[in-house]
């Protein structure tokens, strides 16, 4: 297996695993935060605007780690510098 094929295989597998594993942690964290938000809403319904706003801010912070893994996957698939290096070498020949 030459190095171009190796780069392609490893990039594709890594891109899949990155998004797959990277979304498990944030999903669990968001589930816990929504559960505790619903508990506190049930205990204090008149604090609903504050609780909802804080919930959304917290969800966006947790979501951003999933977004980081998504960006890495996209870079591996669409803007892969190692693959572009091999493409430019093959195009130069």
């Amino acid at each position, binding site marked *: 297996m030459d190095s171009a094929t190796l780069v392609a295989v490893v990039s594709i597998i890594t891109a899949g695993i990155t998004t797959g594993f990277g979304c498990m942690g944030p999903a669990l964290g968001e589930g816990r935060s929504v559960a505790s938000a619903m508990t506190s809403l049930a205990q204090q319904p008149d604090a609903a605007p504050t609780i909802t706003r804080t919930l959304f801010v917290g969800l966006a912070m947790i979501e951003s780690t999933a*977004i980081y893994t*998504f960006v890495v996957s996209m870079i591996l698939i669409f803007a892969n510098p190692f693959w572009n290096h091999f493409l430019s070498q093959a195009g130069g020949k």
Partner: protein
Amino acid sequence: MILPSVHITSDQQILWQHGFVKLNETIVTTWAVMIAMTLGSALITRKLATERTISRWQSALEMIVTGIEGQIVEVGLNEPRKYLAFLGTLFLFIGTCSVCIVLPGFTPPTGSLSTTAALALCVFIAVPLFGIREQGIGGYLKTYIKPTPIMLPFNIIGELSRTLALAVRLFGNMMSGVMIVGILLTITPFIFPIVMTLLGLLTGSVQAYIFSILAAVYIAAATRVAKPKPAAEAHPEPSAA
């Protein structure tokens, strides 16, 4: 490995080129949104009225401005007018870019890392500016050694990393929305891309709110420390009297 019809950012779509000056899609959409917002607001605020009959557009703008002011006060900044220009612009610009996704052929400029990095850099520069304006240079620099002087490198790294996080969060959310709709259009062209566009509208609006609220929280943290002193001076008076 590269799908020819799907671009990862709109920076790569070059619409016009003359010599080394390139006009890419990001610049065109940014200026289009800026001009639309400025012209719209200038038209609405031409004749401001304070009596009984206020036009509905002016009422809508007032609702938006008072809403943003209320949110800034809730974050902890007690004089919202000082920060309303900066934070309001962030929210309105990112929000308008997100809402304009429904226009056909529009790629949001916040789906490009250049725009989001520029916005995050604006926040990075604005936080020390507001902090120095409130507390003076010495007072602001003291916040970096606030818990103990050992925390100085961690505070600096924290500043840099939260700027990077702001940029990548907004970029990732907008880019993922555009890319999912683009890929779905090649698979199931009818109902499902519309549902994903709706989801993109929701996440885009939430991200606009998150960006400006986080900027407000950082500014509040940088300007907050001077406040407890007047309360501490007021307390000894009853015991002295």
